[in-house]
């Protein structure tokens, strides 16, 4: 396999604040963040010749190029699925590593809380209404109409298989909130959550509690990917892309299929991890900090197992007490707060935080962070990245 590993880097980044009401259109946020990304590395819009966007995003290439005077796109396309954040960066890396483009913008923007795009109905209902025939045909008539419910089904089986107590998932939430409380840009700055609050939070769909669920937010993340060589000439410390992979398996469905060989795991994350570590030529022990899909807290211990950070069934006890997964621990997780503590933007904030860790600019900085892993799409089409400060 001719690999794109180590041939590209994330160089510039623009992240909006996370709020319940941005007061801006998604397009405006996108343009603002792309401009911030350009400014911090010293590029101008005509330098940009590629855009990788998400199929569900309300903005598009034309709107961006006409607003920002980008007259020279040679590489563009869409990714689908909620877990595509890392996959979009991978697509950009392919573009620059193969010479199809020099500077590729990757972005997502959504007024996910104020809901200018989806209306006031939940993201779950919008998803159900827009596409997934399987959900409509075989799940919805039985009342399994929400994403949280589908996740809960897998989590229950996971708990049963390994004798896991659902209270332990609270450590994921409390640590993410602890990290989020340190992040002035996040939705929950200075608002940590205690284990007691977690345990008292309402059960939404047993075994998932309200505090297991991501924080809907209005936000945008944009970044610029270029070749490793060009990256070295720009203003910021490059976050080199040492590995980037996407994974769909035979029975993959969006957020938890029930029809694969086994229920109760995250096989896409497992396969993604194998390929990601192989591509980067490193192993779980080499990772300094990880940003995992915490759209639902119980998915985090499951990912720790699938990615080989701990043994099967040991993910929840790995998180117990929080010491291993908070800054200063053996594997600090979701140091910006992630979806639980910073806000939900489909894992794009997780990629941005991995870049900060490599740059040394996180508000919960891990000392000497050399390698940062990002996983998105737990329980569905998955993607992952390993970023590093050197090649």
């Amino acid at each position, binding site marked *: 396999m001719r690999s794109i590993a180590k041939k590209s880097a994330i160089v510039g980044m623009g992240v909006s604040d996370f709020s319940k009401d941005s007061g801006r259109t998604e397009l405006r946020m996108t343009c603002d963040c792309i401009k911030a990304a350009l400014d911090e590395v010293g590029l101008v819009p005509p330098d940009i010749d590629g855009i990788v966007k998400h199929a569900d995003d309300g903005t598009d290439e034309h709107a961006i190029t006409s607003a920002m005077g980008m007259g020279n796109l040679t590489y563009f396309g869409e990714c689908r699925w909620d877990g595509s954040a890392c996959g979009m960066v991978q697509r950009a890396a392919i573009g620059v590593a193969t010479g199809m483009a020099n500077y590729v913008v990757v972005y997502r923007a959504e007024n996910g809380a104020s809901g200018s795009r989806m209306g006031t109905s*939940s993201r*779950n*209902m919008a998803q*159900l209404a827009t596409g997934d*025939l*399987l959900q*409509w*045909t*075989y*799940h*919805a*008539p*039985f*009342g*399994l*109409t*929400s994403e*949280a*419910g589908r996740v*809960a*089904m*897998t989590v*229950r*089986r996971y708990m*049963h298989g390994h004798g896991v107590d659902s209270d332990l998932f609270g450590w994921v939430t409390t640590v993410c909130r602890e990290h989020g409380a340190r992040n002035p840009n996040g939705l929950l700055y200075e608002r940590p959550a205690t284990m007691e609050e977690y345990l008292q939070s*309402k*059960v*939404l*769909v*047993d*075994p*998932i509690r309200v505090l297991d669920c991501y924080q809907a937010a209005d936000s945008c993340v944009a970044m610029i990917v270029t070749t490793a060589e060009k990256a070295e000439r720009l203003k910021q410390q490059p976050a080199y892309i040492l590995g980037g992979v996407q994974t769909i398996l*035979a029975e993959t469905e969006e957020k938890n299929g*029930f*029809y694969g060989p086994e*229920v*109760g795991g995250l096989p896409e994350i497992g396969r993604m991890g194998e390929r990601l570590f192989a591509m980067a030529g490193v192993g779980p022990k080499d990772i300094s900090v990880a940003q995992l899909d915490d759209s639902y807290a119980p998915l985090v211990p499951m990912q720790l197992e699938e990615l080989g950070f701990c043994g099967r069934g040991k993910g929840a006890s790995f998180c117990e007490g929080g010491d291993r997964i908070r800054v200063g621990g053996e594997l600090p997780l979701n140091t910006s707060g992630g979806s639980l503590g910073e806000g939900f933007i489909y894992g794009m904030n997780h990629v941005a935080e991995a870049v900060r860790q490599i740059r040394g600019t996180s508000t919960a900085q891990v000392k000497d962070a050399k390698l940062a892993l990002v996983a998105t799409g737990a329980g569905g089409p998955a993607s992952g990245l390993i970023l590093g400060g050197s090649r």
Partner: protein
Amino acid sequence: MSVQYSSEHSIPVPPPIWENVGFWEAAREHKLVFQRCKECGTWAHPPRPTCPKCRSLEKEWAASKGKGTIGSWVTYRESPHPGFTAPYSVVLVELDEGVRLVSNMVDTKAEEISIGMPVEVVFDDVAEGLTLPKFRKVG
């Protein structure tokens, strides 16, 4: 306890797409069927154009014995859809034929549901033209 439906809002109705029609037609006749490959005998659910094992296009609707065990379940404490009244449970049944089916229990409290519990199919005519295969405890 069974799932309670709202009197004001209907529940989502499965759209009649050709690969799915046989399953829902059979349910209306109070039969539980799954797609089975005519070549290699592999059962598959949800239905799909080809056999996932041998890629054959030749398939039939084979009658299930309707017996299995609970593979997983969830209980909605808040309803995400106006057609359903919370609390209600959704189960994942592992049929003896080797396929899984999302469904509901009838006459069973949420606290009584457990993984591995033996169940058998019953049919609930929930609306004009819509019958849902549901399950009850065995023994």
